[in-house]
């Protein structure tokens, strides 16, 4: 495993050099995440201070991306919004990753009735249009961060389970798994020692795709007012508020939209790069 031999930093540099596009995605994503993490300490201004400048003012030195209808500076607000988007989508995707991997492995290895039951439930979840599922959950639990997280997790779960199950099925047919079974290895040992470490590559790739879908869904829900509630903002809610003033103050919408598109693009580029790295047909295998 090269990672252990050469250290993660040199592996990352190698990755950037080999695959410029996804390297760029990785760097962009890292920059955005750092921006969100350290945003409060950067001299961007207070996202919630009202009347920092005139209302709906064009960009100027005190408010680099203009001000909104309450005279709040737009720049710190979109950084704040991006952080909410990352945080909600990220939390949801971590949940998807944990449960999706577990469910997929159990379905693949248990087989038979358990597999069939799990996969039919997953199919049912798959059948819901994503936004409809989000609205249903918001209606049941009330709008807010928690229901947004739950909605994103349930929307990204079905594909995740399917991918993990498919990879685990092929791993389970390998000689070392059969040899372990002959030696009397139990269900847990096979799943934890043999299957889990060998589906992780696929899990990581799938996590990046789930994250980009999650960010999109979070923005959609917030745009409809079903995500984070004021005074908190996410990119989706900023887009909705800004859309009212689209013709007179386009700086409310465009920077937020552009930031969201850039963030999702960077996640997708990174995901494509990781897939190319692991896919045996398209590059050297990651072991």
């Amino acid at each position: 495993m090269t990672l252990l031999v050469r250290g993660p930093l040199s592996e990352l540099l190698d990755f950037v050099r080999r695959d410029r596009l996804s390297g760029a995605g990785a760097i962009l994503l890292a920059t955005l995440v750092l921006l969100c993490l350290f945003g409060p300490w950067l001299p961007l201004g207070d996202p919630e201070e009202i009347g920092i400048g005139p209302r709906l003012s064009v960009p100027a030195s005190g408010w680099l991306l203009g001000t909104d209808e309450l005279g709040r500076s737009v720049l710190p607000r979109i950084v704040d919004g991006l952080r909410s988007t990352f945080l909600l989508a990220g939390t949801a995707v971590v949940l998807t990753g944990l449960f999706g991997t577990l469910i997929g492995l159990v379905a693949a290895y248990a087989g038979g009735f358990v597999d069939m039951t799990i996969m039919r439930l997953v199919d049912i979840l798959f059948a819901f249009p994503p936004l409809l599922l989000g609205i249903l959950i918001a209606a049941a639990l009330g709008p807010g961060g928690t229901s947004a997280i739950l909605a994103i997790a349930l929307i990204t779960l079905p594909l995740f389970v399917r991918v993990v199950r498919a990879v685990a099925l092929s791993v389970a047919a390998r000689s070392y798994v059969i040899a372990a079974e002959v030696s009397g290895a139990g269900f847990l040992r096979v799943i934890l020692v043999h299957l889990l470490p060998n589906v992780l590559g696929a899990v990581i790739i799938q996590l990046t795709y789930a994250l980009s879908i999650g960010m999109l869904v979070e923005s959609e829900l917030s745009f409809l007012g079903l995500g984070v509630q004021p005074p908190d903002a996410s990119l989706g809610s900023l887009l909705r508020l800004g859309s009212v003033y689209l013709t007179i103050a386009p700086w409310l919408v465009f920077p937020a939209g552009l930031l969201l598109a850039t963030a999702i693009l960077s996640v997708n580029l990174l995901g494509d790069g990781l897939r190319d790295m692991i896919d045996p047909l398209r590059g050297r295998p990651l072991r």
Partner: protein
Amino acid sequence: MNPPVVHLDSVGVTYQSRRLRDSGTIAAVSGVTLAIERGQTLGLVGESGSGKTTLGKLCLGMIRPTQGTVQLNGQPFPRHRRELKGRLAVVLQHPEWALNPRLRVGISVAEPLSIARSLPSGKVDATVEDMLSKVGLEPVLARRYPHELSGGQRQRLAIARALITHPQFVVFDEAVSALDVSIQSQVLNLIKDLQASEGFAALFISHDIAVTRYVAHTIGVMYQGELVEQAPASTFYLKPKHPYSRALRLTLAEEDRAAFTFKDTTGSESARGCLFSVRCPWAVDRCFADKPGLRDVEGSRSACHRAEEVGAA
């Protein structure tokens, strides 16, 4: 006298056809009776789909027979595999998947020990190193990962893992088929030497009868799920008593695969007669009407009406 290590008594495995309109059953293995004694190797040959691997899984208790019984040392299989405590092991075909790529190979080799919990953990490392030298590898290799090793080395490690609990019975399922010829003979010699020192019973499955010749004491020939001939290796390679075995042996002697001139007629078997009759150059009317069972023929067991004539030819 001790019971044989593995004993199959008229064992069959049938699968229910999954198609809705087709209520038929598919027999993967039927009516197989055989026994493998301590220190003996049964070489199992036959074409793809003849049921060799299924028979191997039956012997290991990985699948339950739908007819007949499988016994281990005269006992039925325990309910939980863990109770076997490493008495059974397997070595399979693909060296690239022989070992978990995420584990150091020493851990993989030690796995049957950790499952059986038969050894205090302090002694495991020494046992693994000992086993590695037994299969002709440097003990320092235990710290490597599988992708740092060659196919032959990985297959040796798979053998080390199989033998680390000193099993009574080992199945080698196409264990050398993916290796090139020089590595093949090294690994075959290794298996032979280890059997001489460890005394395990073995089932050696191969589609290649040149390979079984090196290691097997007895040869069994499978055809469409049935054992059609069983004979001591020396007799088998000199005078096969079944037309199918004879054809297999011809490919060996003449180094010419074209000698195997039968058409593939799978699915068009004579319903009542011998399964092989539609492909058999020796077939007479009786073969299409009357199914031959295994019978003793001059030291061999053959399922052919004309076994004596085939053997004499």
